[in-house]
């Protein structure tokens, strides 16, 4: 873009645009004046401080289904915890340093206790096994404040669809739907009755509105059939295994429901990646990118302030220029011309095994 020649008049008159000329002159005085007294952050103010992480103590745990444990968490001094709303999740840091998200499944009105429920997955990433086997009552954990990526909007008619442990965010929604007097129903699906947590608690809310559906008794559920339970124009909240969510999304347009809410989880795991190397700047450090991590994540270990956003290759925020090396583009944002010009989205794009990409960072 030409940043030297001021833009011409809007209507083709043969002169500079007066308003633009005035704005430019104003900007050229305004910018350098910032920092002088009255035009700066008051030097008497303390530097911006981060909100410290929550410290939580495990105050209770019980088995609520086969391989599912519910944990109660509280402030060590017994004080109030930050408020949350149905659908919120907690990012827990386990004693090993692993970080895991868990939906809050207790009562938002109880300001002194969080409850989470964890299914033990023996061949998972180890977080659930650690919580099951090593975190006992009295253990101290840290957590970020609850955040909500699955907010409940209290539409007049709602259908809550839970698959297995996916019941956790939906249980507080059902409770809220009941207290607001909404037209709600909930379907909880799973392999067997013994594998489903919170059945008694759900039934106690309203046995007429809660349906427990197990594969061993009723067969594997069909998404269209589940959605058929929605009142016309209803909002559906779905939480469960990825295939269940995908099936509900596919069947949604043919259903009587109108709105579909689900929790989005950002980056998908890397598939079909090979290890390669990135260098940050021509003379910068060389970092190894393992087959299962993105170049962005590896670069952020070294440069935590790098901008990024979607981590799925569509928003373009993390765009960098490749100075050397042949990338393997996996984004759906850049045009062929941009790629030819050296643009790369390191959140998804990679390189062949053993290749070194030099990034302009």
């Amino acid at each position: 873009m030409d940043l030297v020649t001021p833009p011409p008049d809007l209507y083709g008159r043969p002169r500079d645009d007066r308003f633009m000329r005035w704005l430019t002159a104003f900007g050229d005085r305004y910018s350098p004046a910032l920092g002088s007294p009255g035009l700066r952050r008051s030097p008497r103010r303390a530097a911006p401080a981060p909100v410290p992480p929550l410290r939580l103590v495990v105050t209770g745990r019980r088995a609520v289904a086969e391989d599912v444990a519910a944990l109660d968490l509280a402030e060590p001094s017994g004080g109030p915890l930050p408020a949350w709303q149905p659908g919120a999740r907690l990012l827990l840091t386990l004693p090993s340093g692993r970080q895991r998200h868990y939906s809050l499944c207790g009562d938002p009105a109880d300001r002194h206790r969080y409850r989470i429920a964890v299914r033990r997955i023996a061949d998972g990433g180890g977080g659930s096994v650690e919580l099951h086997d090593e975190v006992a009552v009295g253990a101290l954990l840290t957590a970020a404040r609850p955040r909500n990526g699955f907010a409940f909007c209290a539409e007049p008619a709602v259908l809550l669809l839970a698959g297995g442990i996916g019941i956790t965010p939906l249980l507080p929604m059902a409770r809220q739907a009941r207290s607001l007097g909404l037209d709600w129903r909930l379907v909880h699906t799973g392999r067997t009755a013994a594998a489903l947590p919170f059945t008694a608690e759900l039934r106690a809310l309203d046995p007429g509105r809660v349906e427990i559906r197990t594969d061993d008794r009723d067969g594997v559920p069909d998404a269209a059939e589940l959605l058929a339970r929605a009142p016309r124009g209803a909002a559906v909240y779905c939480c469960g295994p990825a295939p269940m969510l995908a099936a509900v999304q596919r069947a949604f347009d043919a259903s009587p429901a109108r709105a579909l809410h689900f929790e989005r989880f950002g980056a998908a795991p890397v598939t079909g990646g090979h290890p390669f190397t990135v260098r940050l700047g021509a003379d910068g450090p060389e970092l190894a990118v393992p087959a299962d991590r993105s170049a962005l994540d590896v670069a952020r270990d070294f440069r935590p302030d790098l901008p990024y956003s979607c981590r799925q290759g569509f928003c373009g925020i993390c765009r960098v220029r490749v100075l050397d090396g042949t990338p393997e583009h996996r984004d759906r944002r850049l045009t062929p011309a941009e790629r030819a010009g050296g643009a790369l989205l390191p959140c998804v794009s990679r390189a062949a095994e053993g290749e070194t990409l030099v990034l302009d960072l």
Partner: protein
Amino acid sequence: MPGTTQPPRVHDSLVLEPRDVQFDWSSLPLHWIPDEPFATHTINVLHLLLPEGERWFVRVFSDALPMITDEQLREEVLGFIGQEAIHAEAHQEVLDHLLGQGLDPRPYLRQIGWLFHRVLGDKPGLTGRRRRENIIERVAFVAAIEHFTAFLGNWALNSPGLDRAQADPTMLDLLRWHGAEEVEHRSVAYDLLVHLDPGYLRRMRGMLVSGPLLVHLWVRGVRFLLAADPELRGRIRPTWREAQVQARRGLLPDPRAMARSAARYFKPGYHPTQEGSSSQALGYLATSPAARAAATH
């Protein structure tokens, strides 16, 4: 619904993520509110201002990232800039379509490019504290502009007049998807400003500079589009009275309501969550054809 409880406040600590939406403009008519060129072009000014404006938001916030010391705020800012980047692209496609219909927006775009790159861009030669102060000042501009985008987004979500006038459904979805995300993330820029500088003077300056500038750019944009429209050939001239008439019919936001909303930004206890409803915004996003299609990629 008289007698029922209020819907819950769901704006607390929302997780923000961009949605990968796509729109097909191939069948968009030039006057996408049928027989309403004035209202069409008044809203079309958004397509002129937003692509460059929102890319500038992204640059400002990317520059501010190293100054953020709170992890949750950083995550919100990262979600915000991804959403803004997608908004910019979505509106850019409408501009390309306008050109194909014989309305050449480039003279105006040239000025907007100059504004956001040269006038409001990073000034070469500023270092250290002065550069930092410039970044915070721009964050204050963005926070004030985001007050307007939340106001406009809230209007778009509550604009049955556009449905009654049979406005193009794809354009309505663009406006309401965008509006809903503006309402969804309406606190981020303000929270970032307060994090970097809680001073009242800075907040005031943000609004006093960017408010009048935005209004003036808008008026210029309407005048330009009406003059550049190949079917109108300058037959219609914009007036505030006409804007007021169209606002009463529900085709445009009410300029006086917008001015009153801007005035609320000066209240000491102001917070963006006082305007608009997250429940309504998220409720729309769960029904939006574009946002729903984005979810199944």
